[in-house]
């Protein structure tokens, strides 16, 4: 993007001699990256982007520090992905490893929401909320702080390695690395108690794995946010390619209103605006674009629809006294409608958006139901396979089972184990003397594995007509009499 000279295209407005990085004539195999120097821009969408950045980064950096009292000896971090104990803690919610489908559900919801938003207003995610966009935006802001705006940065890059260039570049990169370390560091805090881990980091006592991931995320933030920037969106991310299928004629997209803008050309003071377009070809939209493209070329794969060109163009329109929104959020049907002088109403409610909304609602309800009926007790019964039954000396028949009781509450619970559907069964629990009728304690937040022997006396054996008899184990929590039934079977010799 060589900027040989600038010239005035309208009173007080200079034209930038710049070509879009994806312009057809400049495309070639083996092209190395053309540096993009996004120019500072002011406007409503820029303010919105600052706000979204503050919110998302704020949540990201602060969340691991929020505390949530769960009781004694339990983690008090509001959001903790606890690998050691295989669970995810989120405020009052606790997701165990075997309930990971809740996380799947959450991802399904996120996808549906993304589909819906994309169908409504295009690449809102890419333009405002994607971490790649947010961090790149932050990195560019830092770069601008040390090296100045577009022109200054271009001059600096072209200049030989003077002392000024060295310290400006060095400070930029140091700032980037600091931001990257903070980013990587905070990510690790989500997996281990944040205050503890911070102390360990400062004393160089943290686990190796923490340093490893700190290093990986520091590296990726610096590399992707600081250096690779728009290349991540254009070449690495699959999402832009999928999104093409999610837009339709009624999606609001960042668009240049061609029929109003064309034919474009410089405008002299006092000249008539008749028989010409409003576009004065100042290329402000190109120089502010973080992707370095020209929105006037229409919808493009590279465009993340961050709307900064809208801000830039509106500023120009104000200066030259033409109406705003030459570049704006508009729909395909309106762009075509413009040509025919027919503008259609915005159709937010249409089959596609209804479908996404209904699916979103359904999955939400399903998850809500799942969360509300989340059990705090898991019982599994495994019957012995070898031997299938044991004949005892008094003629009675014994079967062996393994029962696993998982207590998900933070208190010891007492359980009674009974067999339902067998004649006069005698239950004994290995390691618990005289277990019949006795209670079995399962410690708080723990799994207890019990070996159970179930005997049907010789006198009752005739009541079992076949080799296999189905019955239920009933595990009763004596605190509130909640029962869990698990079906299994009892085997005997051939009658």
């Amino acid at each position, binding site marked *: 993007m060589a900027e040989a000279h600038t010239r005035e295209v309208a009173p007080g407005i200079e034209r930038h001699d710049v070509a879009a990085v994806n312009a057809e004539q400049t495309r070639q*195999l*083996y092209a190395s990256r053309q540096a993009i120097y996004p120019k500072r821009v002011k406007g409503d969408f820029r303010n919105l982007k600052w706000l979204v950045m503050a919110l998302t980064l704020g949540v990201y950096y602060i969340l691991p520090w929020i505390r949530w009292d769960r009781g004694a000896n339990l983690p008090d971090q509001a959001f903790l992905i606890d690998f050691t104990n295989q669970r995810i803690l989120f405020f009052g919610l606790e997701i165990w490893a075997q309930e990971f489908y809740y996380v799947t559900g959450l991802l399904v919801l996120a996808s549906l929401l993304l589909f819906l938003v994309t169908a409504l207003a295009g690449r809102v995610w890419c333009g405002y909320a994607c971490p790649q966009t947010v961090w790149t935006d932050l990195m560019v802001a830092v770069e601008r702080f040390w090296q100045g705006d577009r022109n200054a940065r271009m001059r600096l890059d072209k200049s030989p390695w003077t002392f000024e260039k060295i310290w400006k570049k060095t400070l930029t990169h140091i700032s980037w690395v600091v931001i990257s370390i903070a980013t990587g560091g905070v990510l690790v805090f989500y997996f281990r108690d944040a205050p503890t881990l911070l102390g360990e980091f400062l004393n160089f006592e943290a686990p190796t794995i923490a340093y490893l991931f700190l290093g990986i995320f520091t590296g990726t933030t610096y590399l992707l946010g600081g250096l690779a920037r728009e290349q991540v969106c254009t070449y690495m991310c699959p999402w832009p390619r999928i999104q093409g299928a999610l837009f339709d004629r009624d999606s609001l997209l960042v668009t240049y209103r061609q029929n109003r803008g064309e034919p474009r050309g410089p405008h002299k003071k006092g000249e008539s605006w008749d028989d010409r377009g409003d576009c004065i070809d100042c290329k402000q939209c190109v120089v502010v674009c973080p992707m370095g493209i020209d929105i006037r070329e229409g919808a493009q794969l590279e465009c993340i629809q961050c709307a900064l060109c809208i801000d830039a163009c509106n500023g120009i329109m104000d200066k030259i006294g033409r109406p705003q929104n030459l570049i704006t959020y508009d729909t395909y049907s309106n762009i075509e409608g413009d040509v025919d002088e027919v503008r259609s109403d915005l159709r937010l409610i249409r089959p596609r958006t209804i479908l996404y909304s209904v699916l979103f609602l359904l999955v939400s309800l399903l998850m809500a139901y799942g969360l509300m009926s989340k059990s705090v007790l898991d019982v599994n019964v495994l019957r*012995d396979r070898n*031997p299938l039954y044991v*004949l*005892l*000396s008094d003629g009675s028949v014994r079967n062996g089972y393994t029962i696993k009781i998982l207590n998900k509450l933070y208190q010891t619970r007492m359980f009674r184990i009974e067999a339902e559907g067998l004649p006069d069964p005698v239950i004994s629990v290995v390691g618990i003397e005289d277990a019949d009728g006795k209670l079995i304690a399962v410690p708080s937040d723990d799994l207890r594995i019990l070996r159970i*022997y179930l005997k049907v006396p010789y006198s009752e054996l005739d009541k079992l007509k076949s080799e296999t008899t189905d019955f239920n184990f009933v595990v009763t929590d004596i605190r509130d009499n909640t029962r869990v039934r698990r079906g299994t079977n009892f085997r005997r010799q051939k009658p």
Partner: protein
Amino acid sequence: MAEKTEIDDVTGVETTGHEWDGIKELNNPLPRWWLWTFYVCVIWSVLYWIVYPAWPTMTGYTKGIWGYSQRQAVKADLAAGKAAQAKFLTAIEASELDDIRGNPELMRFALAGGRTAFADNCAPCHGRGAEGTRGYPNLNDDDWLWGGSLSAIYETIRYGIRTTHDDTRLSDMPKFGADEILEPGQIKDAANFVLSLSGRPGDAASIARGKAVYADHCSTCHGEDGSGIAALGAPNLKDALWLFGSRQEDVETSIRTGRGGVMPHWDGRLDDTLIKQLTLFVHSLGGGQ
């Protein structure tokens, strides 16, 4: 190489000259990222040869500067495993069987070790689930020829039954028929009586005659009432379990030819801590007394 390069009209790119069903392959250059990845892999592989064992030589192979060897790694892992077990093994060696049973941590270790040792050494005769078969006792039930207490099981495993060990368990059931101690009729009567002990119906007169035969020849070992004597390895004849079958002819065969199963002694083949673990495992199968 193709004679002359052909330029594709649409893309302006040279073709490779290869053609499949009218489709020509463009000779596009490889993507840069791909090339660089390839170069890195090449460098990586060279470093790998230097660091790790790689090339065969006439007499061996290049060892690599790190001196890594999978055999050494396995050895180290095994040693680490042994070291981790040492604490438990020492404790088991020093403890009485009853004390181990009262210690959940030791017991868990002992049962795991016992289960593995059982599968390796005992399962061929007693079965994978210790379910036994004809002539080889089921270890899950509550019927024990030589006693089902921890100490009795320990002794049986350690010294074996009817083996060459000095301390072996030893007893002998006479061959009442083969050695012509009893007449065939008497054997039949005795079998009838024995079966009647567990409530089997039969000819009353024969049972009465058998009772006298039993009192004279069998009660010394199997007890006056037929409940067996564990110290002699003499089975209980009143229960529902029959090691060699419960049909009339099975019992007659037992009386005629005698019985005497053999179990090897494990003293000297398995170390004492492992025999202890095996004992605890067998005892835990449901029949331990």
